[in-house]
């Protein structure tokens, strides 16, 4: 069979470009040497290995391109990035633009608070400043929640997660609403991790997956097979343990973030269902 699509491009140029995020711990983030590491990065390199094997290109060059939540989709679409290994939510809207590998992580949008505040639920936050990050789904979730429950937060926004966490840390906000894995990672890295807790019910449950170009069946098949292979062999559990329940850089503390039922389910039945399928 003739190879085409991304695989042909990779073969022709002898290089493959991974899109990475710089602070989506522990899926994709920078360590103390500013080298990108993380759960999704490990999975991506497994896929790269599969590409090497398939194309018989052991010397395949791997380039890394930092992407942001703003430009990751167009960069995949326009061919700058071949495989986006960050923390992208798989949604029906996005499936119009790009394709996703089988879901490798499921996140719950919850909130981080200072334990001392005694807050345990979003509904306690009427009239209080609540932080989240600009350009994220959490902004929409909070607004929808406000509308649904007719409470009124004072939203404050950080330009990235670190800034948003700073809003919480410096008491500009009493809660920070975000993906729970990111919250856990930020807390683990903070000055005084014991001070914070992740509380409240999930505002939303979202499948996170590696992103690739649409309408490229050969490459999609290879990616799917690789990821499914990891799931079948149980290797994915090792990777999960490595990043979520063991000490990780840069501070060598563990997130102690047990695997959720939703993720267990996704691993048992590999699929690339969008977030809409997770809504009850």
């Amino acid at each position, binding site marked *: 069979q003739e190879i085409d699509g991304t695989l042909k491009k990779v073969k022709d140029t002898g290089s493959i470009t991974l899109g990475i995020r710089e602070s989506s711990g522990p899926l994709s983030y920078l360590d103390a040497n500013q080298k990108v590491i993380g759960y999704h990065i490990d999975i991506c390199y497994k896929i790269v290995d599969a590409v090497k094997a398939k194309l018989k290109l052991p010397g395949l060059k791997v380039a890394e391109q930092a992407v942001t939540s*703003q430009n990751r989709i167009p960069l995949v679409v326009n061919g700058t990035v071949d495989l986006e290994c960050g923390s992208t939510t798989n949604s029906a809207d996005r499936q119009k633009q790009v394709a996703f590998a089988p879901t490798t992580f499921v996140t719950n949008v919850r909130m981080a608070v200072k334990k001392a505040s005694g807050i345990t639920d979003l509904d306690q936050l009427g009239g209080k400043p609540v932080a989240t990050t600009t350009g994220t789904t959490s902004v929409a979730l909070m607004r929808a929640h406000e509308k649904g429950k007719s409470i009124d937060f004072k939203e404050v926004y950080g330009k990235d997660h670190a800034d948003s966490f700073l809003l919480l840390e410096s008491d500009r906000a009493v809660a920070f609403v975000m993906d729970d894995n990111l919250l856990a990672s930020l807390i683990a*890295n903070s000055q005084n991790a014991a001070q914070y807790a992740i509380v409240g019910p999930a505002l939303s449950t979202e499948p996170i997956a590696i992103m690739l170009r649409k309408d490229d069946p050969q490459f999609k098949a290879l990616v799917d097979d690789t990821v499914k292979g990891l799931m079948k062999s149980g290797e994915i559990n090792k990777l999960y343990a490595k990043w979520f329940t063991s000490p990780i850089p840069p501070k060598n503390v563990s997130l102690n973030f047990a695997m959720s039922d939703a993720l267990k389910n996704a691993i048992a039945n590999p699929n690339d269902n969008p977030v809409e399928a997770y809504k009850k």
Partner: protein
Amino acid sequence: MHQFDFSVIPQSLPFIWQGFLFSLTLTLTAMIGGIGLGTLLALARLSGGKFLSRAAAIYVDTLRSIPLLMVILWCFLLIPIIFGVRMGAEKSAMITFTLFEAAFYCEIIRAGIQSIPKGQINAGYALGMDYRTVMGNVILPQAFRNMLPILLTQTIVLFQDTSLVYAIGASDLLHAAEVTGKTFNRPVEMYAFAAIVYFIICFSLSTIVKRLQKRIAIIR
């Protein structure tokens, strides 16, 4: 009050240095390319040719009216589509900054050329020089000398603007500081540190500019 912890700074230095080198490379590339292209644009704007000066004016006015951030994003997204070449963030930034800064340098150089009394052009022509000789030997050398402080001030602005490449994931001085701040979760310290580093660099540069200005000013 916030617990400051400046121990991240020593750890960040290697990255800050890397970022600084990139900022510097980008600044120099955009300065040299931008001044070259900007001079051509300025000559086009001042040329008698209706079409040429109109086209140059549209280019300059458009770029000057759009935030640099937008230009950076557009170029990064569109160059691969238009030219079909994949381009890393660094290269893309260099091309973008050159094209963008050319518009600003153009206006400075144009003002510089116009600040030379018309008599100088006439004097050159009266001696039998042609357009190229007059521009190359009489007008541009004076225009550049008059405008040098402004050209360099614009370059300092350019140096600060390189921080916008964060939008396309290139790592400059500010970005390096921010990323370290995130990695160690000490953003406040790193922002303060970045402010000081920028201040020292830009202040030294502008002091040098002032010295230079005195040194090379044409005696009148």
